[in-house]
């Protein structure tokens, strides 16, 4: 290696000796403190037996399901076709105006498939407001309202 190249190598690494720690520390400090949400869908075999609300749309069907004791609730989301965005998430929102910070993240949906997520029972039987959100482009794709019916019958066949 010629002297000029040796000098260039040293200069680069002197700069990197400052740039790398600054970059690593800045990125680490900027990482959000909020706990990681498990976006993996629950096992299909645990699908709860009773459907209490369903919304049928051309591209997907959303249903709320519960068990016989009405103690556990699920959101079942069936994508009839692949989304036109790379990935989207579903939020439960209790606000008139949607805000990520004030909403509850339910889960992520991607391709044509059936997804099942545990949810909390809506208070006083009020409609459940679901927001389908494209988190890459930061825009709302759809808003759905599902009002649970009183559970009188037996399990779905």
């Amino acid at each position, binding site marked *: 290696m010629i002297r000029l190249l040796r000098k*260039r190598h*040293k200069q680069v690494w002197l700069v990197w000796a400052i*740039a*790398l720690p600054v970059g690593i520390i800045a990125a*680490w400090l900027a990482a959000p403190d909020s706990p990681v949400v498990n976006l993996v869908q629950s096992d299909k075999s645990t699908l709860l037996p009773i459907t209490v609300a369903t919304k049928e749309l051309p591209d997907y069907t959303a249903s709320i399901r519960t068990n016989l004791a009405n103690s556990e609730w699920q959101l079942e989301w069936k994508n009839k076709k692949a989304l036109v965005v790379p990935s989207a998430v579903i939020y439960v929102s209790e606000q008139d105006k949607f805000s990520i910070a004030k909403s509850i993240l339910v889960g992520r949906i991607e391709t044509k498939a059936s997804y099942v997520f545990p949810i909390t029972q809506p208070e006083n039987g009020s409609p459940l407001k679901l927001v389908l959100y494209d988190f890459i482009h930061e825009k709302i794709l759809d808003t759905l309202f599902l009002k649970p019916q009183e559970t009188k019958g037996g399990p779905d066949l």
Partner: protein
Amino acid sequence: MSANYTAVGWNRQKKIYAWCILGFSLLYLSLFIGISLVTNNEVTFETLLIRSTSTLAVLMLHLILAIGPLCRLHPVFLPLLYNRRHLGVTMFCVALVHGTFSIFQFHALGNVNPLVSVWVSNTQFGSISAFPFQALGFLALIILFLMAITSHDFWLHNLSPRIWKSLHMLVYLAYLLVVMHVMLGVIQYETQPMLVILLSAGAITLVSLHLAAGFRETKADNFHYALKKEGFVYVCEVNDIEDDRAKVFCIDEERIAVYKYDGNLYAIHNVCKHQGGPLGEGKILDGCITCPWHGYQYLPINGQSPPPFTEKVSTYLLRVLGTKVWLNPIPLAEGMEREGAKIPTEMG
């Protein structure tokens, strides 16, 4: 070393090197995927592939960047340098698998071209935590691609060593981009500090190695030779140089290798014409000075590569007076023949 274009001049060492790289890569990927499946059976094949190839590529990049300074600090690491290019091309291939599957997984299902989507789907360049980290990885992949496709000596000769070396020094920029790609990407969604610790340890190791080697080289470059006579500089004692080996001296900003061979001393320019390897750190093989980096060879008597090769380096005049070796730092023309400095028989 080859006179004509050949895809790869395979020899035993290169084959061993290539098998080691392949074996290590397959072992790493198998272990990563196996352990991931045992600990998290819900993970998808695409995710496993993206994660395993990303960590393997980062690990290989650290290894590649460590080889250069390690060799400058100790010759025991020179065998690793011999076929570093194959390691580099393998690392690019692994990174390409990671990049391809990532783009497919995160951008292929939209109505925008996936390669365009990488750049336009997130434009929060002013944010740290939401920075478009994928673009950094993409840029690094472009640099690694340019390096991989120009890694053959064909490009070294056609682009000229200066342009080729400048292009390949972009690997340092690629490393910075990769570190920030990881830090602004997965680290933003990861609560465990292990990845940050590993990446920081890698960065500290590389910076330390490169700076240690750099400062050591600077010290050697700035050594002052005080004893001068009739254009010759006193450099060392005859017995300071081992048989078939050399000592390197930096005089007037040029490094000169003084070899002891067959009862004579020969001085040639220390920089190999191939990739700038340190000829003085090689040895005499089959009567030729052999570069420790890639095995390029030069005859001690005239600094020329033996036919049919055409490389030439500058030669220098030497004198042996008593036990002292005197070197004239003014270079002769490249490939110029001159007498070796005869070592007195009672010393040889």
